[in-house]
């Protein structure tokens, strides 16, 4: 009968981060196909789930996982991390421990800032009264029967929405035409129905934990844009080219009013000054391509294969024993002694246990027994 064992260890976590980074690069390439409408924008959710699953399931499976040992570069990194920096009382601190300590401090700091930003936004919106605008309310009633709080204020520079259970849509105090308002509000309503804020929250939490991974920053940018594209797709699905031009005009008009980056990490803005993001959205809205089922199927299959195959191997360093560890020292009365345990002896060399002896041989008979 074959037994399977699962374990999480330092190298299985490292490997999961390596594979997740690879999957993130794959997602970044796939976004190009999403933008030109060759594959559905809904697939982005599937890719995000795969990436995060790989991160939160960093285990190896015995006997399935094969070990691949690397003799170059990797061992040098291991030795560097093991290098002792200083002693704290009787405990020696190495490079890896310092890095882990710094990592925890920085991650906690980012987490607190995130919680504070969410709390600040929630608190600000809670105390602002809902605006009563008949024109806006009529448009909302056309789109949905849900109760939505509308806030119209001069301090709001750019339309945005917020809320996990109850939605609040914030609009600047501008004279929008009815058509422009309809598109903006449709876009923001779809964010809520699409649960974009929940995905953004999960992404933000992962950013606090994996801030050191440069690929995650890239994924961040693309995911935020792809969520906007999903909403653009919903709004522009069945409208003619003239209406699409009005929608695109809205995006350009709103892009000049960007707000502080840190504040916008907690919600989705209708538009922003990121040129790459805007270019992607424009390309998507004006594209006339149709989704290719074969391409969609191929991308899902390829990413699933990568995901599953990544559990069949683990990359480890092969660190050969240093020469000084296997040099036989000269045992003298000054540097060595023997301690008697119950029914055996331990030879100490420079106050470190060195040899386990069943009995004291002639070689060590000159050494003191304590």
């Amino acid at each position, binding site marked *: 009968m074959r037994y399977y064992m699962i374990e999480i260890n330092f190298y299985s976590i490292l490997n999961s981060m390596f594979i997740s980074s690879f999957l993130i690069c794959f997602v970044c390439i796939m976004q190009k196909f999403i933008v030109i409408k060759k594959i559905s924008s809904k697939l982005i959710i599937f890719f995000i789930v795969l990436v995060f699953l790989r991160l939160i399931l960093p285990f190896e499976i015995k006997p399935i996982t094969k070990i691949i040992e*690397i*003799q*170059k570069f990797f061992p040098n990194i291991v030795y560097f991390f093991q290098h002792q920096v200083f002693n704290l009382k009787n405990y020696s601190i190495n490079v890896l421990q310092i890095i882990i300590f710094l990592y925890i401090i920085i991650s906690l700091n980012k987490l607190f800032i995130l919680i504070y930003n969410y709390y600040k936004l929630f608190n600000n919106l809670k105390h602002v009264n809902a605006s009563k605008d008949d024109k806006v309310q009529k448009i909302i009633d056309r789109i949905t029967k849900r109760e939505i709080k509308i806030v119209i204020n001069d301090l709001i520079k750019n339309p945005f929405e917020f809320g996990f259970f109850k939605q609040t849509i914030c609009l600047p105090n501008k004279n929008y035409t009815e058509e422009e308002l309809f598109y903006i509000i449709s876009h923001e309503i779809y964010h809520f129905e699409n649960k974009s804020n929940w995905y953004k929250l999960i992404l933000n939490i992962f950013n606090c934990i994996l801030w050191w991974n440069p690929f995650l920053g890239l994924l961040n940018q693309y995911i935020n844009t792809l969520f906007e594209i999903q909403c653009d797709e919903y709004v522009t699905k069945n409208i003619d080219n003239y209406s699409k031009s009005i929608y695109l005009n809205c995006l350009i008009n709103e892009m000049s009013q960007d707000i502080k980056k840190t504040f916008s990490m907690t919600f989705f803005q209708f538009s922003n000054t990121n040129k790459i993001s805007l270019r992607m959205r424009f390309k998507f809205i004006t594209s006339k391509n149709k989704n290719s089922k074969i391409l969609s199927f191929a991308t899902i299959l390829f990413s699933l294969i990568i995901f599953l195959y990544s559990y069949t191997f683990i990359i480890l*360093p*092969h660190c050969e024993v240093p020469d000084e560890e296997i040099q036989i020292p000269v045992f003298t009365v000054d540097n060595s002694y023997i301690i008697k345990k119950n029914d055996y002896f*331990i030879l100490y060399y420079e106050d470190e*246990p060195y040899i386990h002896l069943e009995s004291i041989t002639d070689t060590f008979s000159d050494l003191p027994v304590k």
Partner: protein
Amino acid sequence: MKKKILKLITGMIIGLFLPTNIVCAHENIPVITTASISSADEEISPYANVTGYKYIYIDGIKYKRLWSYTYARWEDSYWTVA
């Protein structure tokens, strides 16, 4: 930017499949007269920790100690008679 990502992924895929210095299960190290060193068959422990015994001779008596190739540390606290 996209070209860079494409090059990176291509490099990663090639790097995965290029022959690296993959260690064989059996390794022969020449014996030194003052301290004999040899690697026995490497034992693959259940999880990601490849270990192997190292041997030394002190006055004709063979001693062994378990070394972790993965974590670059001794798994045994001291040398014991082999």
